[in-house]
């Protein structure tokens, strides 16, 4: 049962990732990316990482993708205005991406095929991750709050219109 869910989610993720790259309309790209993120959240659920699955949906599908959609509509980019690249540039892009994939797959091809064993299925629940996050990783957690604050200030400063003197 788990296997079928895994292969279905993988197929969905790869297909919608391809559609992100190849669809003409940027709005469609964003919606397909949301679909990819939901598939990846399903993978997290399969791996017993419930907390990360929820955070992934909330942060990515809820916040980041809405930001993307907002910017697309703010800039009125929902028409297909992208200039077409030359054919040989497209070919070179697909070729280099494919070669990268081929290299990595060939590298991991000989790796030992062992089934994924979950010794402790409880590590992904919120209580356990919270203990790790606020115990061992308390300082990085605080630093990431400073990072988010500086990103917020930076975003406001960058998108503010310059006042003419």
């Amino acid at each position: 049962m788990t296997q079928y869910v895994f292969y279905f989610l993988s197929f969905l993720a790869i297909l919608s990732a391809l559609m992100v790259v190849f669809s003409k309309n940027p709005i469609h790209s964003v919606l397909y990316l949301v679909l990819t993120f939901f598939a990846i959240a399903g993978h997290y659920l399969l791996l017993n990482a419930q907390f990360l699955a929820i955070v992934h949906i909330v942060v990515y599908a809820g916040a980041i993708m809405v930001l993307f959609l907002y910017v697309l509509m703010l800039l009125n980019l929902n028409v297909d205005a992208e200039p077409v690249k030359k054919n040989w540039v497209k070919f070179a892009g697909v070729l280099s991406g494919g070669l990268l994939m081929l290299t990595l797959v060939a590298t991991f091809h000989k790796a030992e095929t062992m089934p994924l064993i979950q010794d402790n299925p409880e590590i992904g629940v919120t209580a356990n991750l919270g203990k790790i996050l606020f115990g061992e990783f308390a300082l990085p957690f605080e630093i990431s709050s400073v990072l988010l604050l500086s990103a917020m200030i930076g975003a406001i400063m960058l998108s503010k219109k310059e006042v003419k003197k």
Partner: protein
Amino acid sequence: MGTLQAIPLNHYIFLSVILFSIGVMGVLLRRNAIIIFMCIELMLNAVNLLMVAFSAHHGDGSGQVFVFFIMAVAAAEVAVGLSILIMMHRNTNTTDVGFLNKLKF
């Protein structure tokens, strides 16, 4: 929950590799800066998925905490990146990365 999943760890590696390569391909193929951003997000997510898989395999929660931090950094990156993109659109009236060639050698 069963402790043994029937899925080999290799398949997670292959899935992540494929998703990462699609992201690289998108960055190379597209000229719209927003699509390039989305492909970068795709690559980040491929790495996240692999990290969660290995974290579950080793029974160590630190990997999942790393993924949490990566999500925080991605959120910050998107906020700054999209405001740079709005600046770019305000100055050049396009989001085509081909127009930003002042630094080109």
